[in-house]
């Protein structure tokens, strides 16, 4: 019984974390773009004249979207049209269950893993769920019965499927280095030290893999440098026929994807919750110093480290979104198939040869 309660609490915590951070990513996006462009950004939303640098903006946006007319065009396929945003939303939201937020927390003789479910194949699970999200886009584009949305949907499908190849291949090198598909195990492997001082993070062992993964993951989020499904100034996009909260769900899915990509980057390549030289009983520095800490503080450090890394990658992705113009469609396909896929194959071969040489 208590097992179930713990799992329920974990699910609620993870989902609340995920949704609240994704909600505030919309605020971060507006503010960060403003700061990049020497502006101030949204700062007018207030509660009783209390503005708090625009922190209420996401709620104002949400209220606006809830009260907008939810319009379904007559010519659309109603059921699929209504289903599409929820498919898109669900398959991203479910991926958070596999992300480890921290190591084991011990309370009252009970060991709680700070991860909702610890699958043996959590990496495959995340990849699979992210790919299933494509169905939302295809269905949205197709069920709207509008040529432009269909074009957007097809473009989205083509782009996401071709980048999925590079995404998957870039991770094979990583799986060779950390021989597991379990995300928690991958994070544990990254806690080991190379030559006694360098943490064995993916970024040091798989720099090329990181680069390919990052590009492919950016394409997966379908935001600006790769926003061909949307294509604001040519085909408006696969959610043209949506309005109100359903449109909001598509938009929110984008931000959730940003967050999940940041989580994956952190977990796979930047040591997840690992802090350099922090072990279960405290810091052991390579130059001989020691700083022993109680268990609770160690876990807090781990969760904090995970959060900071994730925020950094969210920041980076938003920076990229506000720096680059959109690729042309053929350029995107060229980059995917002619550069990223061959490079990831080279990465796999190189990693395999190096590993067999080392032993």
């Amino acid at each position, binding site marked *: 019984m208590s097992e179930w309660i713990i799992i329920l609490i974990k699910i609620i915590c993870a989902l609340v974390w995920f949704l609240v951070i994704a909600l505030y990513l919309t605020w971060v996006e507006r503010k*960060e773009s*403003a*700061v*990049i*462009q*020497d*502006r*101030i950004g949204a700062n007018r939303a207030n509660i009783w004249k209390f503005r708090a640098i625009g922190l209420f903006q996401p709620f104002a946006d949400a209220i606006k979207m809830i009260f907008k007319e939810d319009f379904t065009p007559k010519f659309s396929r109603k059921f699929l049209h209504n289903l599409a945003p929820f498919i898109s939303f669900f398959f991203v939201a479910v991926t958070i269950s596999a992300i480890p937020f921290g190591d084991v927390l011990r309370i009252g003789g009970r060991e709680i893993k700070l991860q909702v479910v610890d699958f043996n194949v959590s990496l495959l699970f995340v990849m699979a769920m992210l790919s299933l999200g494509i169905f939302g886009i295809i269905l949205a584009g197709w069920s709207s019965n509008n040529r432009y949305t269909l074009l957007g949907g097809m473009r989205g499908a083509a782009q996401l499927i071709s980048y999925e190849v590079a995404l998957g291949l870039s991770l094979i090198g990583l799986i060779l280095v950390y021989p597991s598909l379990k995300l928690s195990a991958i994070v544990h492997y990254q806690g080991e030290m190379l030559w006694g001082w360098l943490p064995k993070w993916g970024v040091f062992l798989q720099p090329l893999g990181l680069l390919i993964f990052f590009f492919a993951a950016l394409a997966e989020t379908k935001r600006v440098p790769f926003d061909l499904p949307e294509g604001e100034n040519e085909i408006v996009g696969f959610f043209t026929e949506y309005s109100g909260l359903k449109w909001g769900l598509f938009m929110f899915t984008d931000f959730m994807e940003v967050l999940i990509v940041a989580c994956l980057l952190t977990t796979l390549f930047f040591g997840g919750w690992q802090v350099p030289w922090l072990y279960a009983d405290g810091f052991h520095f390579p130059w001989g110093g020691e700083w022993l800490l109680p268990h609770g503080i160690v876990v807090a450090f781990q969760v904090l480290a995970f959060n900071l890394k994730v925020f950094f990658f969210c920041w980076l992705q938003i*920076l*990229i979104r*506000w*720096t*680059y113009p959109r690729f042309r469609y053929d350029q995107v396909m060229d*980059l995917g198939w002619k*550069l990223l896929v061959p490079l990831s194959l080279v990465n796999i071969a190189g990693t395999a040869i190096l590993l067999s040489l080392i032993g």
Partner: protein
Amino acid sequence: MIKALGYFIAIIKGSLITTRHFMVNMWFHTLKLFRIKTKRKGAVTIQYPEEKRKIASRHRSLHRLLKREDGKPRCVACMLCVTVCPSECIFVEAAEDPDPEVQKVPSIFIIDLSRCCFCGFCVEACPEDAIRMDTGQIEFAEYSRDKLIYDLEKLMG
């Protein structure tokens, strides 16, 4: 492949520019948060309704009609402004003035601001320096068009 690498370098350079902007602006925003006064601000934004930009002295704003010492309009109803106005938004009707030096005064002087394009030709055409556009008022939006028709009283007041 080599071409792609060239693009890659350009891409990195671009992101460094935006990062620099972000860091510099963020630094000044943070200083402002801790109430440290700096010459430079983190943003160039003027927060309009609260903060207003200084209007240049030659800025063409709302019109006004100048008065003589006795309070009558300086205008002699010569119709030059009516003639020169490109959007035909001025309407003047002349009346006789008892003073033989002046002879004519406007009995009606109407400017339809909903048509006015603020070119300032009327000010340049006026031989008596009777109309000017130097009130510095730029906020006179209204909810109905007939409120934008300014008559003699409104223009002199």
